């Protein structure tokens, strides 16, 4: 406990509280002087909450010391290149510049936020178990549902940042990320943002869902503003993280690691980072415009002032559609990375798989308006967006065919990580196959804003992120801790989660086709969906339970797991050629790439060769 109160985390939180109060107090004072009503429905007035939130965020960063090296440089004071971390668990709640510590910080935060998002889902899923309003009212339901959406999105962004931070420098043989301080900054900025996100729950909530379409979002309670602020701030983390990763891969690869000898996960990370570096600005911008509409009366999206509500949707989806590829590409990279290890065969068509990630990322920029086929935008725009959207199926198909060809004729082993890889392939396939009907305008006119869409994207998010994320955790846990996770509990986790999940999404799609709308707190009993909804709720709780088993396994294995310091999975990848857990500054001897990454089955071949220690 003492270690916690002395940590950078605790200091940051305290400063955030003080900073927010000062910022809010400042605005309240100005309002009082100007003769405006100084207070609002939730204590402070809305402008005071927003300004307080902004000041509080900056205060958090000032308080926890993540920017202190930069401040020193500005004043001409030299600093150490590296900061040595303490050896105990407290390094995870203090500022560290080590990419592995930051990766684990991201991952643990992702798991906490994932649990929070899951809890919101359990709450509103219970409400939906039967028709009629049980214990939530409409606005509370919408807030829970909107928070589930955005909290899960933040969890996914943190999760992929965790995987990329931990793995990419190890896979390319770098000692750290290109900008370690920027890396720490990108992580720590998400903490105040997460707090503002949850604070919206106590400030009247927001009844718009995570998409925050105006004019509805221009009228929602103050919670809406805190939601906008939080997403705006999380966006900084994505942009800076993407930049950092691209520079790291461009500049810090080991000798001999040419473009087509990069581990496939690195290719996926490049594709993802390109999107998050260049598209995230648009969601920040669209939310900022609504914030300004509310705060300063700028009528960007207010028809009464000549604004255009549909414009918001264009700006919003210009990020938010490519964002789904940000969520899934690293996961698909994990699938491609792990399959060869467990089937003992090279990745089939390595170059095609690598290029398909880039293909998805680039085509992904041209498809945003498929979310708007019914929105009232120009009718003739719908057809070109249908063509571009359906094109995404081509590079995605290349991945599937290459995976099947990789597995075909292999010598397949199925420990827990491989189970999750295979689960990911099947679940993502369900998501992929249910995509084209949404991309085709005529069928989308029926499907848009129904539970079919809900089922479809849960399949893509689970297949593209959740399953591969768990696979990665089971797979690299020994690398981080020197122990392996319990196989029995891992398999229990899988066999509880997968069937429940498939039942849940099939059920969603079924009632969606029959007329179940999205984002509704209640449904007409006459539709006859009560039984299906009950099944969906039970399935949801089973998934939640399986994740609890995972969390138990994770913490238990940290102390009691079977010791595994060697090349546990018999992989060719460089990080497994050295003992686990990984030392603080990665490889004590540099390596050179001398072969292809996935040449399993080629006798005498090697991917990397370590330099002679005494040279």
């Amino acid at each position: 406990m003492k270690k916690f109160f002395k940590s950078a985390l605790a200091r940051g939180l305290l400063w955030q509280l003080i900073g927010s109060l000062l910022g809010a107090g400042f605005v309240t004072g100005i309002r009082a002087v100007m003769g405006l009503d100084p207070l609002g429905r939730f204590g402070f007035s809305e402008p005071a909450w927003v300004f307080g939130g902004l000041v509080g965020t900056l205060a958090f960063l000032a308080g926890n010391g993540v920017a202190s090296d930069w401040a020193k440089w500005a004043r001409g004071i030299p600093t150490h290149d590296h900061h040595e971390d303490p050896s105990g668990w407290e390094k995870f709640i203090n500022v560290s510049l080590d990419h592995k510590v930051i990766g684990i910080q991201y991952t643990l935060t992702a798991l906490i936020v994932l649990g929070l998002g899951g809890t919101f889902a359990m709450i509103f899923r219970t409400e939906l178990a039967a028709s009629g309003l049980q214990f939530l009212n409409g606005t509370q339901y919408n807030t829970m549902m909107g928070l589930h959406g955005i909290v899960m999105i933040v969890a996914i962004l943190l999760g992929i940042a965790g995987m990329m931070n931990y793995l990419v420098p190890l896979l390319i043989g770098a000692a750290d990320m290109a900008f370690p301080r920027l890396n720490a900054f990108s992580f720590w900025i998400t903490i105040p943002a997460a707090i503002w996100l949850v604070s919206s729950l106590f400030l009247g909530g927001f009844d718009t869902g995570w998409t925050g379409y105006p004019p509805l979002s221009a009228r929602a309670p103050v919670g809406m503003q805190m939601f906008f602020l939080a997403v705006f701030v999380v966006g900084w983390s994505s942009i800076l993280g993407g930049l950092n990763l691209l520079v790291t891969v461009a500049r810090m690869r080991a000798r001999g690691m040419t473009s087509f000898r990069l581990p496939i996960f690195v290719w996926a990370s490049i594709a993802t980072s390109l999107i998050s570096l260049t598209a995230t600005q648009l969601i920040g911008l669209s939310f900022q415009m609504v914030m300004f509409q509310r705060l300063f009366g700028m009528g960007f999206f207010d028809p009464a002032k000549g604004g255009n509500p549909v414009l918001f949707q264009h700006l919003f989806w210009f990020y938010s559609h490519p964002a789904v590829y940000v969520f899934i590409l690293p996961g698909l990279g994990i699938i491609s990375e792990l399959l060869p290890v467990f089937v003992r065969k090279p990745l089939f068509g390595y170059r095609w798989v690598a290029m398909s990630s880039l293909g998805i990322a680039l085509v992904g920029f041209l498809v945003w308006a498929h979310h708007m086929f019914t929105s009232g935008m120009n009718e003739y725009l719908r057809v070109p967006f249908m063509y571009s959207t359906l094109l995404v199926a081509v590079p995605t198909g290349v991945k599937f065919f290459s995976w099947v060809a990789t597995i075909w004729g292999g010598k397949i082993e199925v420990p827990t990580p491989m189970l999750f890889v295979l689960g990911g392939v099947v679940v993502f396939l369900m998501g992929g196959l249910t995509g084209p009907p949404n991309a085709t305008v005529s069928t989308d006119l029926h499907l848009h804003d129904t539970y079919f869409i809900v089922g479809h994207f849960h399949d893509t998010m689970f297949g593209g992120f959740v399953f591969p994320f768990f696979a990665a955790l089971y797979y690299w846990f020994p690398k981080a801790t020197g122990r392996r996770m319990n196989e029995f509990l891992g398999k229990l986790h899988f066999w509880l989660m997968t069937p429940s999940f498939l039942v849940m999404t099939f059920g969603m799609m079924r009632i969606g086709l029959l007329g179940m709308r999205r984002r509704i707190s209640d449904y007409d009993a006459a539709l006859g969906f009560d039984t299906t909804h009950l099944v969906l709720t039970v399935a949801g709780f089973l998934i939640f339970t399986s994740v609890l088993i995972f969390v138990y396994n994770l913490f238990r294995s940290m102390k009691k797991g079977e010791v595994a310091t060697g090349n546990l999975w018999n992989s060719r990848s460089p990080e497994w050629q050295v003992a686990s857990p990984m030392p603080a500054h990665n490889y004590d001897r540099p390596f050179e790439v001398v072969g292809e990454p996935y040449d399993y089955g080629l006798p005498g071949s090697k991917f990397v060769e370590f330099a002679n220690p005494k040279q």
Partner: protein
Amino acid sequence: MLHFIIVGVLVIAMSILTYLGLTGIGLLPVQASAQAIPIDWMFDYQIMAMSFLFSLIVVPLIYSLIVFRRRKGDTTDAEHIEGNTPLEIIWTVIPLFAVITFAFMGAKSLGDTRRVDPQAMVINVTAQQFAFSFEYPDYGFTSKELYAPVNKQLLLKMTSLDVIHSFWVPEFRVKQDIVPGRFTEYRITPILEGVYKVRCAEVCGGGHAGMQSFVEIVSQGRFDDWVKEKQAEALAASQTPEDRGKLLSTSFGCFGCHSVDGSLLPNGGPSWLGLFGSETELEDGSTVLVDEAYITQSIMDPASQVVKGFSPMTFNGTDAGLTEADLADIIAYIKTLQ
């Protein structure tokens, strides 16, 4: 080679079974509009493609897991196959043509849903939190329900008074958002008599789930009777201020949030039953008498007096263009609800 033959046969069998299974369980609601026909035609091809692709991936996957499983004690690697460029080209080019074909079919079926009948009957739809209202300009009245004759194209000209809503009748398939500040168009040709429901499909606030109206498709004869009935009602209603007020309350959507039987609607406002002449407590703790002046101010400037326990009213009489005469009629109607 044998492996490929077995898998090929299994893929075909699985595709057919999946397709028959999916179409057999009845995936879609009844087809109640002419526009549903091209859309369901498109769905059918998509289900075919899905069944085939599902089998194409899942069958070899499961087959491999069974047949190519590592034998106990075997620690060697599998055969070193790096890839096959012609194969990669094939599974890039064929899907490319397939998606272009599907996009073309999608555009064609979209075109079919947009066929214009110049004789279409125009109905003006106004959406607001949380109600639809339907104005029949040819007949000069407004209804809470959409009532229409079968086999005749309807042209719905839709707009919203507040936030974005969406018009969706699952049996008609087509969906169209309703945007404030502009008119969107919805063309539909009902082909099956029956009672359906239009439900708002774009989240529009706390009461979104309950935003719905009946859609009744009837024979031309019954429709003509209904029109006469409604016209007589409208004529009778325009005689007294109370009846005019009731009519105005319908067309301005007041009943989306206010009941007249004392109940509270989800995310709505106070019931109008017994409202006039009562004392009500405001958010700031003060108490006011509900009289003409109070009701007028509440409608024309809703944020100025918020009743304790409720959110400010989303309807704004000034913005909606309510005249003084309208207000007097509505207040006269509220007075009758005791």
